[in-house]
């Protein structure tokens, strides 16, 4: 018996599973570094987060009698990213609850992989921030080879026990702004000698992972460049206008801009499919992030900026349709 099927009769070797596991690989440099600076607590929290994400997905798929897809790698990514978005000081149950929320409410109820509107890890983080604000925003730990603020302890009395973005939000005196704009600070942010969420610390290692994905075409650099670039340009404009005391490079390297711009905004499921749409998505996201940081109530605006842009994806796809060949 000959097999008959419609053309084409060959397919590329890229599969959903392959893309997802490559994203996991791309997150590894930042993860290994997190273990280095935050110790085994980082492993524990990340593992719990992954187990919770996979377990939740399994339970949901089992209960609803759907195909079990937990090995496609997407739940693992959500688990890692959620853990990357919480403090290394968090209680063990925090990532468990966050990932369960991400999988049940954000991903599976909307139809599972491919159908969720919001990035599950980011929405999970938003849920945790709303539910346990003190655990999410005031429970930091300094990294092994640096300080929480990224500044030398003797530099500024007492304030070394806050993250750079908190310093900026709470008490942006001139001397603090000066320290935040120092080369010392920027270097600390780039390499990762500053306190913060588990996975957002080292801009360099996140970039290495992301460049791998760009090269493999498993993430679109246009979204990342749009997002991070617009954070840089827009914060630069506000700095020039005197609306923010810190330089654009600080805005670009601090907090979750790198993690969000490189790994969360580029989530395929929750970003536009057209090239124009992706540029708008990234650029608008970056602007919203800076708006929140400068005028909003939170010190950090990355997760909300991306979640807000997630909502606009269907609209962006619609308004940025390509010109059909010959039409």
């Amino acid at each position: 018996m000959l097999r008959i099927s419609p053309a084409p009769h060959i397919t590329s070797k890229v599969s959903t599973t392959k893309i997802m596991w490559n994203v996991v690989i791309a997150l590894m440099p930042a993860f290994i570094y997190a273990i280095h600076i935050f110790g085994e607590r980082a492993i524990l929290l990340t593992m719990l987060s992954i187990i919770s994400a996979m377990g939740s997905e399994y339970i949901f798929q089992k209960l609803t009698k759907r195909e079990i897809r937990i090995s496609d790698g997407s739940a693992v990514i959500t688990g890692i990213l959620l853990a990357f978005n919480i403090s290394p000081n968090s209680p063990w149950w925090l990532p468990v609850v966050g990932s369960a929320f991400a999988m049940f409410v954000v991903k599976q109820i909307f139809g599972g992989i491919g159908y969720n509107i919001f990035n599950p890890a980011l929405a999970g983080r938003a849920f945790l921030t709303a539910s346990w604000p003190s655990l999410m925003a005031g429970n930091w730990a300094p990294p092994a080879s640096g300080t929480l603020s990224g500044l030398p302890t003797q530099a500024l009395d007492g304030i070394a026990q806050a993250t750079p973005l908190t310093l900026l939000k709470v008490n942006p005196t001139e001397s603090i702004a000066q320290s935040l704009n120092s080369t010392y600070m920027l270097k600390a942010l780039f390499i990762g000698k500053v306190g913060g969420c588990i996975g957002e610390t080292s801009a360099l290692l996140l970039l290495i992972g992301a460049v791998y994905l760009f090269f493999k075409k498993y993430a679109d650099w246009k979204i990342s460049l749009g997002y991070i670039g617009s954070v840089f340009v827009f914060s630069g404009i506000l700095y020039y206008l005197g609306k923010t005391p810190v330089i654009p490079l600080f805005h670009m390297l601090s907090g979750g801009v790198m993690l969000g711009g490189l790994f969360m905004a580029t989530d395929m499921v929750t970003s536009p499919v057209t090239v124009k749409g992706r540029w708008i998505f990234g650029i608008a996201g970056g602007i919203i992030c800076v708006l929140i940081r400068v005028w909003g109530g939170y010190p950090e605006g990355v997760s909300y900026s991306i979640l807000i842009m997630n909502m606009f994806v269907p609209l962006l796809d619609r308004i940025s349709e390509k010109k059909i060949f010959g039409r």
Partner: protein
Amino acid sequence: MSLLTFKGGIHPACCKEFSKDSKIKRIEPPDFVYLYLSQHTGIPSKPALEKGEEVEIGQKIAKASGKLSVGLHSPVNGTYMGTVMHPHPLGGMKEAIRIQVNKENSTPFKEKKRAKISSIPKQKLVNIIKDSGIVGMGGAAFPTYFKLQVPSSKKIKDLIINGVECEPFLTSDYRLMMEKPEEVMKGVDVVRRIINPENVWIAIEANKLDAFEIMKGTSSLFPWANFVVLRTKYPQGSEKQLVDAITGRKVPEGGLPFDVNAYVQNTGTAFAIYEAVYLEKPLFERVVTVTGNVRHQSNFLVPIGTSFEYLIKLTEGPIGKISKIINGGPLMGIAQSQISSCVVKGTSGIVVQNETESIKKEPSPCIRCAACVDCCPMNLLPTELYKHIEMNRLEKAKEMGVLSCMECGSCSYACPANIPLTQQFKIAKSRITKKGK
């Protein structure tokens, strides 16, 4: 050097190395040949003989019937056995002329050198091409004489000879260019004289630079020809993409190349035109690449009507079990239900796949990776189109350009979730056009 190309497309493994060095070899005819009355776009031809009549190689055995039709010529010396229903490579059972090959009489076709070709008027050339049964040899099988009669309102500026052969595996056009460059160019010259273009472009993909050099080697004889290399990318050989790459003009939606003053002709067709005009030889044999999972991948000169089974045997057989046989390339070719299907004028190759190569991958949900959007050469949004068609919104699909889909297969190829995009569009297109009638 930045090579000419179009936007979008895919880069499948070219797999041409299997057969590219196999020289074109004329094969012994099989015991029977089957010539389908319908092997071109248009009205099927009508048998012109009585059962039991002896036929000679090259003799007309079926006449053109109607406005858009061409005849058939016997590829062998033998006996006309009437018509039977036979599995057609494009699907279904179709009426075919059956000829029993006379094994005693292997007299080859007598080529006659036609005299004073340069003084034959245009219309006469078109008639010769029509009488010789020539159709597009790249797969579409559109009667060439009809295409050559460009409406007088459409002045052709650019004649493009398509030597791109972008489908993986196939090497029949490549071998023709390697072995018969001058003959191909003489065929091009005939086309040039009929349609009188301003420019003539010989377009070859960058993975066939040796063929490019050989073709270019004829330029002293054909000073009017421009030889251009195009980037290796699928579907570079698609008419609209080729016209765009070379002239920068985009064929309008639903239009034809002549709407932008361009005319595209395949290399194999040019060669057939050469044979018809210069040697008075009608189209009854063609080069077929038999490749894929067979022992000796080859380029054969095959009598039209030879069964796939016979050709596969000539390669000393498949390696292991045959699981799929494709008429044409792996991206747009058609899977055969019967190994007894026979070569038609449009069969440029036969690709054999084994069990693992032909395995059907189960589709999973779309992850919106946009691989299909990025590669669609017609600039459609395959993933969005798919969803609309799935929900039966055909009007919306039409508005989003589904009728522009040329079923090149790029989106299905690229999709990491194995969603049968191309198949869905094919069905939607036929549903939309049927509704319109």
